């Protein structure tokens, strides 16, 4: 086995064995019940689109052989809990993307099972990337290193059975990240950590989730403002039907160094049944003056006045509801996501 890979796996396995499952009394897990977890790695299969010349788009094992210095420099093994420890301890498959300075690429992948993706963007490079997850993989991870003035536009679609996702991004000066995560699977916990390191770096994170039956969606999105003049926006948008549940935790940390930061955090959840439950927990930690930071959350059923308005123009109650539900995700979706979120669910 590759020395780098075996080191990561071995160290992570040791941590995994020494860790307990998170307890409900831990604040980050308060609204998420963990049961029937089978720690099995399982198979995984990845399909990737073609890449333009000069761009590296390959599986992570090949990358560890052929681009080991880049991987060693940028891959940060972040173990926060037993699931992330398991993730690295069973690292067998994944993707490596490198966009050299000044280059741009549009890429996509379809991932069935567990995987780990590392994305490195050179200076002033651009990437548009869509990744789709399905299957029974217990964990998946994405790490992004965005160089100066680079721009990343990412769409992650999760439609897996029971998954813990780890998403991390570090942005250098004036780098821009636009990331939409859509979750429609059975049980999904997504932990996102966005580090705005360089000055004037900015991130726009949109989390869309849709639940039915007993499905559960859990988002923990942390934005760390480190550089000055950094901007962030985090929006959670979900529709819950039947007895489905959700928790949306947004955390904004503004460091002493992050003067003139602008941060906005909001979540809206639409409940389509009496039994659906949504929890929204914002948290702001500000260590400097001269910042703008705002948050807001709404949770509610379809507005009766909106229904009446649409009905007064001849739409039946069912049509009017469908209109409101379909329109709900419209401000944040692209063509890909429209099908996923407004599909048969």
């Amino acid at each position, binding site marked *: 086995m590759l020395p780098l890979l075996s080191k990561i796996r071995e160290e992570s396995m040791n941590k995994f064995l020494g860790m307990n499952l998170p307890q409900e009394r831990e604040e980050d897990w308060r609204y998420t019940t963990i049961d029937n977890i089978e720690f099995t790695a399982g198979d995984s299969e990845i399909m990737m689109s073609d890449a333009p010349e000069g761009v590296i788009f390959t599986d992570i094992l090949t990358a560890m052989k052929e681009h080991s210095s880049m991987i060693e420099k940028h891959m940060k093994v972040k173990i926060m809990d037993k699931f992330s420890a398991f993730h690295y301890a069973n690292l067998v498959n994944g993707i490596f993307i490198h966009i050299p300075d000044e280059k741009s690429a549009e890429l996509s992948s379809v991932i069935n099972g567990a995987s780990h993706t590392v994305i490195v963007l050179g200076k002033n490079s651009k990437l548009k990337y869509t990744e789709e997850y399905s299957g029974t993989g217990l964990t998946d991870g994405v790490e992004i290193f965005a160089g100066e003035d680079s721009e990343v536009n990412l769409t992650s679609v999760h439609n897996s059975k029971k998954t813990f996702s780890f998403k991390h991004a570090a942005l250098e000066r004036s780098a821009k990240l636009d990331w939409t995560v859509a979750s429609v699977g059975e049980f999904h916990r997504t932990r996102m950590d966005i580090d705005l390191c360089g000055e004037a770096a900015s991130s726009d994170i949109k989390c869309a989730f849709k639940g039915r039956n007993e499905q559960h969606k859990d988002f923990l999105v942390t934005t760390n403002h480190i550089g000055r003049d950094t901007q962030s926006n985090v929006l959670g948008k979900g529709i819950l039907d039947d007895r489905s549940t959700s928790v949306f935790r947004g955390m904004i940390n503004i460091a002493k160094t992050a003067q003139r930061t602008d941060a906005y955090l909001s979540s809206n959840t639409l409940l389509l049944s009496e039994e659906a439950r949504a929890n929204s927990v914002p948290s702001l930690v500000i260590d400097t003056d001269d910042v703008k930071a705002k948050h807001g959350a709404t949770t509610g059923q379809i*507005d*009766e*006045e*909106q229904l*009446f*308005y*649409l*009905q*007064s*123009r*001849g*739409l*039946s*109650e069912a*049509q*009017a509801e469908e*209109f*409101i539900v*379909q*329109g*709900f*995700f*419209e*401000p944040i979706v692209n063509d890909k996501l429209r099908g996923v979120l407004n599909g048969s669910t």
Partner: protein
Amino acid sequence: MLEIRDLHVETNGKEIIKGLDLEIKKGEIHVLMGPNGSGKSTLSYALMGHPKYKITRGDVLFEGESVKDLSPDKRSKLGIFLSFQYPMEVQGVQLSNFIRLATDNKNFQEFREDLSNNMSMLKMDKSFGQRYLNDGFSGGEKKRGEILQMAMLKPKLAILDETDSGLDIDALKTVAEGINTVNKNVNSGILLITHYQRILKFVKPDYVHIISDGKIVQTGGADLVDKLEEEGYEWVSKNGHKK
């Protein structure tokens, strides 16, 4: 076409309309005026079938049939339209797509032309159609949007609830022109509910009714508006209940 007979309406357990009678024939323009709290908006909601406004007595006949138990969409399909005082914002639904669904016009070319003509009449920029329904619209834009929907739906009866409020003089003229055009082209009956006289410089009513405490207390021609302008609503309450 519309016959309101001894109408009583309550909302939140309180009776607001207390025995109101009104008849509107095809193509007629009726103006309903009255002070705040007299029941103007309650009447418009009740006529359109808002679930929170309950008709406790009396009836509303539209083309001879009672509509008081029909859902709002059924009333709309019969040809009743309500222009809202505060139109609702619906995110993610484009105005033009919404109107297309509401009009149920299968002929796309014809729909496009009709929409384009009506938007020009109302001095609305084409980009309006792509914007989400009332989302981020200014007060004036919302009212133009309501008149646009009325012009597209071509109702037999249009109830306009304070469509003139919050408009500057240019917007007021445009909206009034829209009302007159629909009245003339479609022969719609109009029930124009207003608090102010100023729109009546541009829309000429056949009848003017004054509502006070849930009842119509005065009915007359356009001259009633002048009288009201001179004397104010106090004159109505002093001389009320004259038919």
